[in-house]
């Protein structure tokens, strides 16, 4: 019981720390890392939930399945967020006045 509590509290603290960083910092990479820390916190609590002894040496397998799905989702979202962050970096660099290529239409249609 005390083990479950420790894990849950740690998860809660991680979630809070991640949330704090997500709100406070503006750098894209820090935000992505913050969200990852938050999801780790949630996964930790979920794993701890599984440790409720059902019988002799048995634990509940359903939270593990959920954590696995969650990790897959988290990896793919992190990849997408990193690519977007890279693109933002690139476009903000190339739109600097000195590096603008000739012949480019200045105001592009967003449509």
């Amino acid at each position: 019981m005390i083990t479950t509590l420790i894990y849950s509290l740690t998860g809660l603290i991680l979630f809070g720390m991640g949330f704090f960083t997500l709100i406070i910092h503006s750098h894209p990479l820090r935000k992505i890392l913050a969200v990852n820390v938050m999801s780790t916190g949630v996964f930790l609590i979920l794993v701890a939930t599984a440790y409720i002894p059902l019988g002799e040496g048995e634990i509940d397998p359903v939270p593990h399945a959920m954590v696995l799905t969650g990790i897959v989702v988290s990896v793919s979202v992190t990849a997408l967020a990193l690519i977007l962050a890279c693109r933002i970096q690139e476009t903000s660099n190339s739109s600097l006045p000195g590096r603008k290529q000739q012949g480019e239409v200045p105001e592009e249609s967003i449509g």
Partner: protein
Amino acid sequence: MTVFQFSSPAWMVCPVILPLIAGLLCFLFSHRTFAIALAAALTNLLVVCLLTGQLLVFGPMRCHMGGWQPPLGITLRTDGPALLMLLMTAVTGLAITLYARGYFSYRISDPRRAGRHQRQQRYFWPLWMLLLAGLNGLFLSNDVFNVYVTLELIGISAASLAALSGKPASLLASFRYLLVSLLGSLTYLFGIVFLYRSNGVLDLGLLQNLAANGLGIRTALVLMSVGLLLKTALFPLHFWLPPAHANALAPVSAILSALVVKGSFYMLFRFWFEIFPSTITQPTLNFMGTLGAVAVLWGAVQAIRQHRLKLMVAYSTVSQLGYLFIAFPLARVDGGIPVWSIVIFIALAHACAKSAMFMAAGTVFLHLGHDRIKDLSGVRASLPITVFAYGIAGVSLMGLPPSGGFVGKWLLLTASLGSSQWWWALVVITGSLLASIYVFRVMSRLFVIPEGFSLKKSEPHFRLLEWPALALALISLFLGLAASWPLHILVHGTTTLAQVFVGGLP
């Protein structure tokens, strides 16, 4: 072959599987993407019609995936609200598919940036099909964790779609959208942890029967609601919506505004009024109603203040979403109208009208090259059908009869006056007046033809750019005349209506 019989529940797998397969095929055959997507959208509409027929004959149905029963297996189910949302997605989705074809053909016909636009089109179709599969899965799913997965699918594909235009503004907006959507999903997942801890089941049907009222359930409900509200963009949490919706490509804006925000709202509504109705107290409902009322007024005032057409339409979405939440405090009125019907009507009418409006705004943008409201004059001469579609969509947003928006707002007014909560009626009327200001502000520009204006004949014309918007606008207009039909499906297909509607069935 019992699987292909009319009465088989296995049909409800099709709305999820078909767009998913179509999305994969779009990656493989990048030259026939439109044909594949159109086939998927058409088949999806047919299957949803078949499911509606099934519902009217047999009532709500369940399908246990792979033969596994709950609590272990995942269940899909159809009922009245789910089917109306599916119909909304299928009809709007088909029109958006046609419009997107016209949109990309128009842009690719411009030789300057054909390569870039072809690339956008190549990524648009698979992502749109993935999003459609996610939405259909969300509406059909009967499992809390499955809902989390579909929400993530929707979030990922929607954020990628929003980034398609590749401009710095849209990339930033899409990055913020992705983070917000991720934060919402994480909060929702956190709620699932509490739910699972206190109940040990994830199936919505089983959770509904438990009807427990402990601290764990309450914490879970608060966390899940905050997550879903973040994705639905209710008033204080709406900050991400206008830039993300306004800076996307026109078909994407239509998808995001008409369908994506409705998905998370639908789940929120289900949790509050179907799964845990006994946990919700009247002060909480009043709080949600107040947030909705502020959203209606704030969104409308912001829409009036905008200088760009697409931003105005995006703020109008913030305002219209508020109406959905005003229905919350009116849910427990004895002898009133079932709250599902109010909410579904507003959602259906808004989906048709708003996607038509974003399509019209996109077409205007393509023809003029900008969407500054003060320079819109003369558009009526070159794009009469688009301007007509914009006007009719505006009629539905304002809530003039006989549009679907009118019926939704009329039901809201009747419910609020009938329960002597007149202040909600006041907000609804003020919101409609403000809506008429922002709609007419653009209309008056569109209809003015300046002196010395001559029609450019060289512009290529694409019918697919104009007609889908008009069709959707007309659907939203005549939805009010056919109001009894959706209500029939709703009453027929909702076994739990008696719980939602405390006074019993009418």
